[in-house]
């Protein structure tokens, strides 16, 4: 009866933004990205990808509460980059990595079923 709808955990409420950006007021080149309706799946891959970036001084994500379906991604970069640039770069790299993985898998599946 008094239960929130199950879809609330993956449907972004109307009027809300999927990603919002909050610049740090005290530290240069630091910001927090608030991503609505995402969890460890996205949070962890973005964090690990950011760690590969030499310009990123700090990158972490957290899921502040299991029933508040949002994650915070905090990034600090060196002065030649910016958190926004690093964030976009991480997503682009992950996207390209998945393209490669898909291509590899499709090839492997067809080769495997032919030899089988």
């Amino acid at each position: 009866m008094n239960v929130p709808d199950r879809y609330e955990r993956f449907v972004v409420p109307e009027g809300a933004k999927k990603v919002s950006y909050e610049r740090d007021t005290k530290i240069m080149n630091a910001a927090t990205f608030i991503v609505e309706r995402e969890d460890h799946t996205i949070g962890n891959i973005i964090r690990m990808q950011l760690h590969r970036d030499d310009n990123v001084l700090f990158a972490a994500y957290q899921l502040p509460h299991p029933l508040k379906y949002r994650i915070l991604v905090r990034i600090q970069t060196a002065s030649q980059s910016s958190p926004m640039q690093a964030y976009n770069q991480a997503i682009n790299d992950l996207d390209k990595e998945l393209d490669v993985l898909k291509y590899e898998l499709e090839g492997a599946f067809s080769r495997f079923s032919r030899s089988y």
Partner: protein
Amino acid sequence: MEGASYQRFPKVKIRELRDDYAKFELHDTDVSMANALRRVMIAEVPTIAIDLVEIEVNSSVLNDEFIAHRLGLIPLTSERAMSMRFSRDCDACDGDGQCEFCSVEFHLRAKCHSDQTLDVSSKDLYSSDHTVVPVDFSDSAAAAGEALDTKGIIIVKLRRGQELRLRAIARKGIGKDHAKWSPAATVTFMYEPSIHINEDLMETLTLEEKTSWVESSPTKVFELDPVTHQVLVVDPEAYTYDDEVIKKAEAMGKAGLVDITAKEDSFIFTVESTGAIKASQLILNAIDILKQKLDAVRLSDDTVEADDQFGELGAHMRGG
């Protein structure tokens, strides 16, 4: 805006592939990616499952809710699911979720007329769409050499005079919403282990010590060659990272007898499907879904603009 690329180029190798099972190696990537794929396969790849049941007659021993729940858990062939709409964002039917773009209708009519109990199974469900039907396991059973005359998944058993008549609506959904929509039975991955025996130290052991050390592993990772009395690694992947052999070596005063490390960038995946989607398709769908998710978390243009203004303001404040 363009920085250096830190992209990786993962490699795969298929070990085993059946309709409902896949085993493959994933190389040159990191755990976060392996785990993201696993999580997406379990909870975010869509399938079709019965979501709404209207019961006309039910004089069986099971109550209506019980039967509705059992119907929901029957896997339905869901190749269509990726191109189907979620009923909540279907505009063809105003969200009541009963149109051809977002739903499939099922009918079930069964009555027992004999003294023998009648098994009502998933085979008695009649679908309005021939591409979405209860999963048939008879093919895979035949392939495995089992002489089963499969009767589908039993929903309820009826006694003489009992009757069940209902209409059911199946919809597209994801495992995050309800586990009945999960296409995966199990998805696991492990680090590929690399096991090296210190041969010099091993030769200092007596045959008895070797035997007891080989037997200290709970899984069959090592073997003692009966002729040469050499300890061999026969199945590194059987190792469960239990550390038993390492503790045993230490207890024997032979620390460093074996060196076991996990390769940080190599994973062995096993994927078992419920039958709703083929295992190979499940993996490919997971990649597509993950790409869509990444696309959704890209910054929108207005956030970038808002920051540019803020940036100028900030530059002023900093005296720029």
